[in-house]
């Protein structure tokens, strides 16, 4: 019989025993038929049970066999208290699932190495210091000529690769009427070879595809896009599509595992960098630079060399006359070059969500610990109730280890059941959380595989959980002293101390979770309810492109046409909508002074735009059709205060100073109330300029992009979207709506992270609170039951209600108070780590501390009441009679 058959025998133990039994029976038969005395034959065979045990052990793996017995016994124990077991499994499943989800998200975004040849040799280049806007920051965008210089210099030490920020762009495969969105990314031709990515069809770029500007109108599509858009049709190679102003030919499909280098985004179409319109510009930074270090190359010398090359480039570019202030120039040239390891790639989402995910991870870990403490108390109470059984087991010879195993088997069973539930919960919740990141029309996409990493994490988690809630009660159970237990109970206080310790821990975690959740919710509330300075009500935004670029009078015609559509109240135009997150800035010069260090922000708008947005004009007038850019300007209060130091600047002149040293004179026609420009977090000085743009010769220039801002009559502006989309193209066929959104969506887009944090934190705070409440209730009821005899005797002797309640509740309240203080301390410390995620919510705020205090108070009241009632309802007569 092999090892496997011995394992198999473990699970057919009965059968093995029967076989042995039968063999012995036939042996005795034989003996009798040979004329031996039956009794003597039986005696000769010896103690049948012992024989059987001995043979049985030979035919199975004894330890596995006893584990099997323990598991069956544990299962029976769990089944005995269905409700508590189910509650324990449910709470653990939720906590384990949430932890696994947090792990999957963090792993997918921040830890999982890119599926490229040598992720450990990948670095990302960035600059840190003061920016052109005179604010400190870190930037990872680069200009192409600078990149080419650095790449040449780094030869032999590292391969530099340019990868643009993925752009959710319009592409068309047939006619312009069938425009669709795709994630387009410009990548350096050498990227695929240096990452050792293989084609799934066709071929990939090589360096020769990326040598001369506009020479290689080729595209490689990602496997995911190939599958989603083309159903993995191999004939897709050779297809062409329009993107921007060009026509591109698909030459291949990239390997399945490669989805780009920006976690959070799955790239659809790769295009050579040489096809980017800014590829020759020194002043446009539009891509990240990754470095693949050669094996054994020293990083610090490489960084220094790149820094020197970059510094020389910038110094050369910014020498001579520029529109920058000398301070800004100095600052920019002092920027530090950084070369950070980037085995997981680099993305905006990594930057934006690193801390948020860590915070959520910490919260769910607390919830898990609370759940574990609950189950530990439950197990402790159960094993206490089984003290006699344990004592009996010890007295008939069970070893300590055997008892530990017995109790641990039950815990492991609980944990296994919960982890199955947790896996389900995580399978459902991880994609849900990802879909909550980014706006509705451009959701984040994280690759969330269920592979050995997740499995390993799950296994570690379960082991940890079992040890956390199972080991202490198991050790305690195994240390039972038969004499004490059989005499009718051992010292109950040790067990109580353990339980109260658990309660204190639970309460402090719960306090912390509720406290942090309060901060997140309050931050979100403050941001979301902040007045924006304009009205988003019933506003529909039609982001529109025209190909080729059309004169602005044609844009006006389209706007006029839209005004005639039923259900439309007002139509105005702007370069882009407010709070879209993009900006156009330049320095300001007043009275011939040098360019300002601080920047002003610009937006071109049509006459009537202010009224459509309901931004009040404080003085002066709105634009008229005859006004054009430059010359005419409407400024906001912040601009008037900051640059003109004048609350009534109508009629004054100022100059817009560009990087290329050109200056444009503008006259203030009006002043408007402040409204948020690109972000709801900072009020910027803004200059509104006319949409109609005349070049220096006085000719009207054309526009290729703009936004129609439509105030609809109905409260659901999206209802009109498809009709308006068609009407735009009907008005003039060169115009196409590339994106339809509501202003409300953009406003909400400002608080996506805060909303996510607040929602998740609130959810886990409620779960933590419930679990802690249940835990409190359980311990209180348990201590009443334990003391029932004592309570009965005291009642019989005439004790008052207060005297009876105090010992039962006192210690628990003490534990709660201790836990709350610890939780508050931890909360105050933790705010330092989450400060950047908060908005105006202060931990020193009294209400922030009051919320968790109230929550804990409520939990205590709800848990104490039933225990007190139960204690006071004790009937001494019936109790003492039962004894």
């Amino acid at each position: 019989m092999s090892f496997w058959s011995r394992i198999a025998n473990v699970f057919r133990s009965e059968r093995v025993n029967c076989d042995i039994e039968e063999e012995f029976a036939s042996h005795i038969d034989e003996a009798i038929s040979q004329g031996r005395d039956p009794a003597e034959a039986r005696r000769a065979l010896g103690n049948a049970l012992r024989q059987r045990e001995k043979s049985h052990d030979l035919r199975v793996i004894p330890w596995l066999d006893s584990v099997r017995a323990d598991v069956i016994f544990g299962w029976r124990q769990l089944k005995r208290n269905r409700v508590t077991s189910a509650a324990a499994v449910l709470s653990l499943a939720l906590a384990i699932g949430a932890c696994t989800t947090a792990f999957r998200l963090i792993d997918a975004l921040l830890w999982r190495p890119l599926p490229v040849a040598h992720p450990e040799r990948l670095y990302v280049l960035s600059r840190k210091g003061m920016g052109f806007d005179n604010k400190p920051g870190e930037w990872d965008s680069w200009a192409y000529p600078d990149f080419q210089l650095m790449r040449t210099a780094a030869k032999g030490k590292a391969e530099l690769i340019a990868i643009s920020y993925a752009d959710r762009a319009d592409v068309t495969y047939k006619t312009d009427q069938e425009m669709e969105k795709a994630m387009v990314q410009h990548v350096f031709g050498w990227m695929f070879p240096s990452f050792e990515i293989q084609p799934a069809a066709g071929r990939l770029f090589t360096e020769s595809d990326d040598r001369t500007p506009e020479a290689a109108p080729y595209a490689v599509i990602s496997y995911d896009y190939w599958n989603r858009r083309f159903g993995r049709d191999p004939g897709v190679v050779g297809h062409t599509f329009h993107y921007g102003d060009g026509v591109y030919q698909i030459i291949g499909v990239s390997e399945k595992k490669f989805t780009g280098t920006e976690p959070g985004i799955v790239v659809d179409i790769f295009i050579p960098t040489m096809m980017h319109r800014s590829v020759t510009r020194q002043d446009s930074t539009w891509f990240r630079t990754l470095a693949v270090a050669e094996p054994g190359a020293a990083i610090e010398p490489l960084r220094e060399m790149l820094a020197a090359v970059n510094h020389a480039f910038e110094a050369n570019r910014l020498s001579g006359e520029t529109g920058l202030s000398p301070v800004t120039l100095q600052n920019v040239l002092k920027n530090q070059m950084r070369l950070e390891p980037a085995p997981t790639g680099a993305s905006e989402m990594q930057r934006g969500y690193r801390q948020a995910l860590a915070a959520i991870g910490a919260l769910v870990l607390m919830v898990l610990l609370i759940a574990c403490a609950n189950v530990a108390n439950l197990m402790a109470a159960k094993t206490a109730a089984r003290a006699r059984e344990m004592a009996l087991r010890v007295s008939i010879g069970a070893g300590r280890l055997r008892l530990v195993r017995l109790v641990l088997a039950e815990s492991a069973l609980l944990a296994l059941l919960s982890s199955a539930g947790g896996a389900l919960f995580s399978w459902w919740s991880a994609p849900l959380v990802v879909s909550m990141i980014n706006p509705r029309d451009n959701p984040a996409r994280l690759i969330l595989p269920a592979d050995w990493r997740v499995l390993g994490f799950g296994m570690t988690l379960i082991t940890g959980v079992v040890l956390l809630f199972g080991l202490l009660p198991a050790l305690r159970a195994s240390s039972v002293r038969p004499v004490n237990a059989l005499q009718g109970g051992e010292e109950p206080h040790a067990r109580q101390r353990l339980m109260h310790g658990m309660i204190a821990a639970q309460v402090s975690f719960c306090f912390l979770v509720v406290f942090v959740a309060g901060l997140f919710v309050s931050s979100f509330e403050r941001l979301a309810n902040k007045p924006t300075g304009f009205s988003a009500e019933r506003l529909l935004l039609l982001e529109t492109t025209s190909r080729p670029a059309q004169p602005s009078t044609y844009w006006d015609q389209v706007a006029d046409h839209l005004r005639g559509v039923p259900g439309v109240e007002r139509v105005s135009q702007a370069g882009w909508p407010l709070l879209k997150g993009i900006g156009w800035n330049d320095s300001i010069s007043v009275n011939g002074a040098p360019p300002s260090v601080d920047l002003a922000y610009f937006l071109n708008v049509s006459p009537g735009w202010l009224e459509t947005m309901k931004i009040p004009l404080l003085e002066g007038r709105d634009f008229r059709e005859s006004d054009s850019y430059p010359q005419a300007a409407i400024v906001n209060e912040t601009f008037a205060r900051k640059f003109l130091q004048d609350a009534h600047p109508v009629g004054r002149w100022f100059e817009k100073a560009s990087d290329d040293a050109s200056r444009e004179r503008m006259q203030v026609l009006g002043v408007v109330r402040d409204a948020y420009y690109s972000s709801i977090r900072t009020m910027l000085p803004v200059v509104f300029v006319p949409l109609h743009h005349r070049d220096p010769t006085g000719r009207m220039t054309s526009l290729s992009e703009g936004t129609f801002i439509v105030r609809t009559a109905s409260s659901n502006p999206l209802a009109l979207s498809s009709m308006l989309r068609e009407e735009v193209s009907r008005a003039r066929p060169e115009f196409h709506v590339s994106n339809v959104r509501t202003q409300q969506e953009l406003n909400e887009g400002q608080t996506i992270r805060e909303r996510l944090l607040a929602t998740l934190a609130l959810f886990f705070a409620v779960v933590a609170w419930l679990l802690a409440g249940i835990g409190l209730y359980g311990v209180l009821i348990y201590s009443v039951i334990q003391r029932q005899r004592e309570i009965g005797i005291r009642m019989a002797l005439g004790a008052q209600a207060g005297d009876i309640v105090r010992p039962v509740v006192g210690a628990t309240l003490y534990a709660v108070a201790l836990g709350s203080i610890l939780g508050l301390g931890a909360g105050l410390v933790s705010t330092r780590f989450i400060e950047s995620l908060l908005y105006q919510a202060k931990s020193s705020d009294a209400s922030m501390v009051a919320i968790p205090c109230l929550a804990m108070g409520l939990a205590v009241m709800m848990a104490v009441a039933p225990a007190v009632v139960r204690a006071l309802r004790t009937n001494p007569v019936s109790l003492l009679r039962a004894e």
Partner: protein
Amino acid sequence: MAKTDSLQGTLDLLVLTLLARRPRLHGYSIMAAIAEMSEDVLRAEEGSLYPALHRMEEAGWIRAEWVKKESGRRTRVYELTKAGKSQLAAEELRWQTVTSAVNRILRMA
């Protein structure tokens, strides 16, 4: 000569030898055969025989099979496997070595 059950270490050899000569024996007949052939000098106690049989079965030297007897009861019969044959050879060799060594000592003494 007194009966002895000091079969320590030799029970395996005896069982394997018996099964090599007469295949398909059940437990009782193995026991009876040992007693008979040794003219009651050697006795395999039931208490050690069955664990030994099960252990050797576990080790793969012998294999067991259930057969029906006329009485309707099933009985378990054992036979040697290929591994058992080589084990038997090894055990025999070991036995010869040990006994000849013991004999040498006895003669010298």
